[in-house]
């Protein structure tokens, strides 16, 4: 089964990096290897993980979505304004935010498909529009004081010594599991990979290209909206500048996770591991206490570079091996 090994190699390497990294941290800091740290790692990176799942699908389909950070920011503002200024119940506000974010993504997907525009440009425009809309609603940071927020933040599954699985962490894990099923056990998932493999061939094989394109950007928008809800729970506020640059963090997680930026190859689980690696670096720097937090960026930058070289290397090796043994 060398072929299976080859296919999963990027994923295996990423996971190995996470495990080795965790062991190194644990060796250096005595109380690092605890359920509390694991629980916090999941909670702190929940919004990033949820967004990155959507990004994985978009990239698998051969596209990119630069608007997700802005959509998260917009969602937090929309929630704050509806709940605090409009007096809405948070659940109603959540529903509206999800519909708005999903609809926004669907609209971008529609433009990309109908006008055959590059996703990079369309979602870049989407990024500016979503940020701008947030500012139109309010330029202030609006605290959300609804009692439901407190209650939601108290929901947690406790496990081990001091470990707890918060609602955001549960949501992220749920999204990851659902995404794995969607990617590998539904026709939509197969269509995404097909689209990322070769758009023209996919079309000639009967893949509904338009529908799939719209759906994948809608899904990415929807998940960014969900991430926005999680983010507002986490920070207890709505702010139009929230989550700036998150689109780049998610793309980083996707690439570290072994998904090819050109589409067609990759796994959702890899992205999840990529998110955890970024979180781990962040946690390390917090533990150390003396390092500037910018070291996080530098470490991630180096890691990203190494992973891209690794992928390139693997691809070259595969190409060199050629096809079947040549016998009649």
């Amino acid at each position, binding site marked *: 089964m060398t072929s299976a090994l080859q296919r999963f190699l990027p994923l295996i390497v990423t996971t190995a990096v996470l495990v080795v990294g965790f062991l190194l941290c644990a060796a250096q800091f005595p109380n690092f290897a605890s359920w509390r740290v694991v629980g916090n790692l999941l909670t702190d990176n929940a919004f990033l993980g949820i967004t990155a799942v959507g990004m994985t699908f978009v990239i698998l389909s051969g596209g990119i979505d630069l608007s997700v950070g802005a959509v998260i920011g917009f969602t937090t503002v929309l929630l704050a304004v509806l709940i605090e200024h409009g007096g809405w119940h948070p659940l109603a506000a959540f529903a509206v935010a999800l519909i708005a974010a999903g609809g926004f993504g669907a609209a971008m997907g529609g433009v990309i498909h109908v006008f055959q525009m590059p996703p990079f440009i369309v979602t870049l425009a989407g990024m500016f529009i979503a940020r701008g809309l947030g500012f139109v609603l309010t330029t202030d940071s609006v605290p959300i004081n609804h009692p439901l927020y407190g209650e939601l933040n108290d929901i947690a599954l406790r496990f081990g010594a001091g470990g707890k699985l918060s609602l955001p962490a549960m949501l992220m894990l749920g999204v990851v599991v659902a995404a794995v099923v969607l990617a590998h056990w539904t026709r939509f998932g197969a269509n995404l990979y097909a689209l990322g493999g070769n758009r023209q061939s996919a079309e000639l094989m009967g893949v*509904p290209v338009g529908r799939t394109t719209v759906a994948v950007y809608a899904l990415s928008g929807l998940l960014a909206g969900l991430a926005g809800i999680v983010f507002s729970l986490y920070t207890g506020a709505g702010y139009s500048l929230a989550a700036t640059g998150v689109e780049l963090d998610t793309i980083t997680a996707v690439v570290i996770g072994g998904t090819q930026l050109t589409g067609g190859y990759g796994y959702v689980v890899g992205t999840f591991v990529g998110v955890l690696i970024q979180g781990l670096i962040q946690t390390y720097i917090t533990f150390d206490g003396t390092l500037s937090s910018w070291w996080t960026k530098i470490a991630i930058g180096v890691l990203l570079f190494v992973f891209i070289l690794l992928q390139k290397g693997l691809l070259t090796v595969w190409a060199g091996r050629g096809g079947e043994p040549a016998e009649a």
Partner: protein
Amino acid sequence: MTASTAPPSSAPLLAIRGLSKAFLGVQALDGVDFTLRHGEIHALLGENGAGKSTLIKTLTGVYQRDGGTVALEGREIAPRGVEEAQRLHIGTVYQEVNLLPNLSVAENLFLGRQPMRWGLVDRGAMRRRARAILMPYGLSIDVTAPLGRFSVATQQIIAIARAVDMSAKVLILDEPTASLDAQEVAVLFKVMRTLRSRGIGIVFVTHFLDQVYEVCDRITVLRNGRLVGERRTAELPRLDLVAMMLGRELEAAAHRIDLGPAELDSRPPLASFKAFGKSRSVEPFDLDIRPGEVVALAGLLGSGRTETVRLVFGMDRADQGEATVDGRKVRLKGPRDAVRLGFGFCPEDRKKEGIVGELSVRENIILALQARQGWLKPIPRRRQEEIADRFIRLLDIRTPDAERPIQLLSGGNQQKALLARWLATEPRLLILDEPTRGIDVGAHAEIIRLIERLCADGMALLVVSSELEEIVAYSRRVVVLRDRRHVAELRGGEVSVERIVAAIASESKSGEVRQ
């Protein structure tokens, strides 16, 4: 797979009437009629650009038609996409088949119609059924491996298997045999005959007339987007068919020029190879090539023909034996050495190794000449134009002018431009790998005529071709290869299709030892 048992009603399986389709100024289809009956294999023929692929794509909803009607078993249909055509039980292998290299074989076979259980894709069932689908083609491969791992021929068979499995009513194959060898084609024909006996109608597009006469019941010919006519294969002699396709009478296929073996051997060889070979590529062979003769290499796909010419041209380095040119020992370390010795090479895959699509016809033609002179001594523009115009005229390359990007030309004309590139260097030995593959009948005949003219001028030619009749028409000597060995050499009067086939097919007794 349920509809195949439907009783053949009085209505034909597929009735296309007055189909029209234009692309920005090109009338690709102009009021074409086409009728496919239950249980027939129907060849759709015509030169490159006749509109065959456009007919297929318009029929299956890839393009939307400008006018005309299509009826499937008497009911009007107008699919708006491939998916809809598939749901109508029309399975198609398009000319540019590319399946998806990143998906597994099983996923490719079942994309868009995966077996489902409890709302989810049943991957186990998909694997099992994929294996079953490939069984009749003699393919037992790992269906979970990415498709991109397999050879082009295997991928082609998988594409065909997918289309066959979806075509409960109509199967359309647009030039599916281009990359298949004789055995694979035989398997495909067997499958096609089985489908025909089940009442399925098959539309078959090919450039190989032998194949048409082997399996097809009926022939429809298109020319310049118009219908020329429909005939029963049995009632249409080959020459009439070619005339229909070309719209003019074609002089009978090239006549044989017989040169007795005696005279052949008395000439001193231009190039001579002794025990020349490369391990794991092709076994050592002896080969003499004399001025003014055509030596053909015949054999099945993978028999070592292409490997032989790659060695001769220095693209692969021989690890044993020696080469002499004009009686002097030479070293062939790379194509540059070969070019310096006056060799030229037209590769088989002209898209990948030959033409540079974005460059103009002129630039493509002078490429090899310029390379031989060295890039520091540019050929003056005036001279370039002279050379390009001369060859465009000489080879009848159909292009509005020499400055047109070569990718806009048809396949046959690209091939001729590639030939011109090497002729411009006035080579003493020209190697042609499948010179007539994938080009239309008209250009085909011209290229054969050209080959004969070149030899009359004293140039030596080494040709690889799968078209045995062609080989017989122009070769004075034929080297037959099998399993990466040169197994026989036929000369002069011995050259005939039967003897070549016999040599290819003969078992490795008759004195030869295998490995």
